């Protein structure tokens, strides 16, 4: 057993509210009255009782013309066409795979939506069906894009590009989907030495930057070369930074993760998970992001 480490409690000072951004959203809790005006249509997350519109989930009120809805802060992932997701294969069925993406229903990856190795374009035959397990097995992680959403809310995925496919060595961080900011691209190569995929469903994949940029295989063969220690340290530090950002309720995007990484450099990797260090690092990140906006 190592020596004892002591941490002293300190009375916390109330942090001044950050500079108000334009268009403050109104937050409600379940049971709060949103409006007593009967002219509005009720959307998701609301219900009507005694001529009052009441929220049923905790979140921000969104209003589009006459439609009032509450988007929950913590919920399962609701798929939208074009989102990038990271999911895990749970079942291999006839002509499709079932993928778990932190949503209410398992997502579906059809065999016809999957790229064949070598980039061939042909009709999937019975042999392809029998060889499905060679491509993806239960427990494999994949990155994919949402192709369409079924009427019951289930998501249909596709990996019709070389940048999607089976994921190899790396670290998965599971956070709530509301923390991932919608951006133009979700695949980032961070300058600190690792790459990250920010899945819209809250699954974040951190992996060592691949050396060759051209992958003709469509990433079906996993690279099992040992990852050097320096890369591993960068990846663990990034993982702890993401956990810190999520605990302090900051949105996740490439700039925030990078600033958090830089702010955490003076600390040891395992110290980042301590509450007081987390607060310090994230406060610095928040400050830098505000300076960037200004």
């Amino acid at each position, binding site marked *: *057993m190592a*020596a*004892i480490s002591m*941490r002293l*409690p*300190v*009375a*916390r000072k109330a942090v001044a509210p950050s500079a108000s951004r334009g268009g403050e959203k109104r937050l409600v809790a379940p049971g709060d009255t949103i409006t007593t005006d009967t002219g509005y249509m009720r959307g998701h997350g609301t219900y009507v009782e005694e001529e009052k519109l009441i929220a049923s989930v905790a979140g921000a009120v969104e209003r589009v013309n006459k439609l009032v809805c509450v988007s929950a802060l913590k919920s399962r992932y609701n798929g939208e066409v074009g989102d990038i997701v990271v999911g*895990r294969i*749970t079942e291999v069925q006839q002509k499709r795979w079932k993928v*778990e993406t932190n949503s*209410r229903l*398992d997502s579906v990856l059809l065999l016809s939506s999957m790229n064949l190795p070598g980039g061939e374009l042909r009709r999937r035959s019975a042999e392809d069906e029998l060889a499905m397990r060679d491509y993806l097995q*239960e*427990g494999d*992680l994949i990155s994919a894009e949402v192709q369409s959403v079924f009427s019951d809310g289930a998501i249909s995925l596709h990996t019709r590009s070389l940048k999607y496919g089976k994921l190899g060595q790396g670290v998965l961080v599971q956070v709530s989907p509301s923390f991932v900011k919608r951006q133009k691209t979700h695949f980032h190569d961070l300058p600190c030495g690792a790459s990250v995929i920010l899945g819209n469903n809250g699954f974040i994949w951190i992996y060592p930057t691949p050396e060759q940029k051209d992958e003709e295989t469509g990433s079906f063969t996993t690279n099992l070369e040992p990852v050097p220690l320096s890369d591993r340290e960068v990846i663990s530090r990034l993982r702890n930074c993401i956990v810190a950002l999520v605990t302090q309720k900051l949105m996740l995007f490439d700039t925030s993760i990078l600033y958090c990484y830089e702010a955490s450099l003076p600390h040891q990797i395992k110290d980042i998970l*301590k*509450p*007081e260090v987390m607060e310090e690092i994230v406060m610095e990140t928040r400050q830098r992001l505000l300076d960037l906006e200004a």
Partner: protein
Amino acid sequence: MKATPLSNCERRFLLRALQEGKRLDGRQCYDYRNVRVSFGPDYGCCVVELGKTRVLGQVSCELVPPRPNRPTEGILFFNVELSPMAAPGFEPGRQSELLVELNSLIERCLRNSECIDTESLCVVAGEKVWQIRLDLHVLNHDGNMIDAASIAGIVALCHFRRPDVSVQGEEVTVYTPEERDPVPLSIHHMPICVSFAFFQQGTYLLVDPTEREERVMDGFLVIAMNKHREICTIQSSGGIMLVKEQVLRCSKITAVKVTEITEVIQKALENDQKVRKEGGKFGFAESIPNQKITSFKMGSTAVDTNNVEEQAEEIITKAEPPSEVVAKPILHTPGTAQIGEGIENSWGDLEESEREEAVEEESESEVTAFECQKRESEDTSTMKETKEDEPIVLSDSEEEEVVILEPQELPKKTRTQTNSKQENTSKKACNRKRRKKRAAH
């Protein structure tokens, strides 16, 4: 909703770690998690936390006619519910295998062991008896719900008080709690379940598995025992073959664990009793501690201080000597001096100090040896005091208006200060040497 499946790499990791004797949360194979018992404001309501697994137990009673084949015995009714807040895989109203198993185990543990005296629950033979109903709700599932449920059940039963009843001839009077104090149930002994998880066909054994460990286990053994080492019920599931020695070993471990848990329960019951009697605050709100380091109310953790002295010595010898700490440091960059700012004027000291330093280096070796001997008997505390007591002398520059009451003392002070500075630096050198000497021991 469907439960999140366990990934292959997690499964492999857990089994590999187990082969090396390591568990995810750092426990040993036979270690239990922390058991916390907290009571609600009503009698018979308690929450048991076994690590993160939480079970709420609630006891209630009612006067009912007895069963026809047992007219002089009270009725016990046990109910275990898996609420969807425990795990995403639990659905309300669905009878799963796990639920049936839990219910049957609790029934066997508490009913068949006859820990509650049902004869004492009879009010009028054949007409009115007490029906005691125990509801157990699993609030969070992090493994080993059976143990937590059994502890919650027995604690709730021990904590419960039923209304007092008196029978005069044909009249039965049930007193309200305000009229007469409610009466506790008569409980003979406290059976507690202890679970064991087996891995790799019985090669590895874990006590109190967490939810992850439960998902990868091969077999499961539950032994319910009381502190008098009587086995109340024993159940094995999972389909692995257990050897006699393994079962005997498990029962010995159970005996140890049950005594520990019974102690915890007794202490919790006594504490609650004391608080209620003294009229203090009781209930769930009082027993929820803040989990942050910045709060001033936190649970205490036991610290192993067996080899602290040796380890501390090791660390001190390996560490570098601490840098000098001056109480009020003023760093002068070479070639500069300071005037004003409420601190002693060091303009004249520049030339003096350069001369002094040269003198110091020569005489240091001679002086320190002598001074160290002189000061061996002194405490370090007095040394520190003299350092901190360096007087701040008002600047004697001509530009500021300074009213000097005793002008003759001022220059003396500065001189003594420089002298004391010299002494201090040599004291510091001596300290350093002394610390090194001490560390070498």
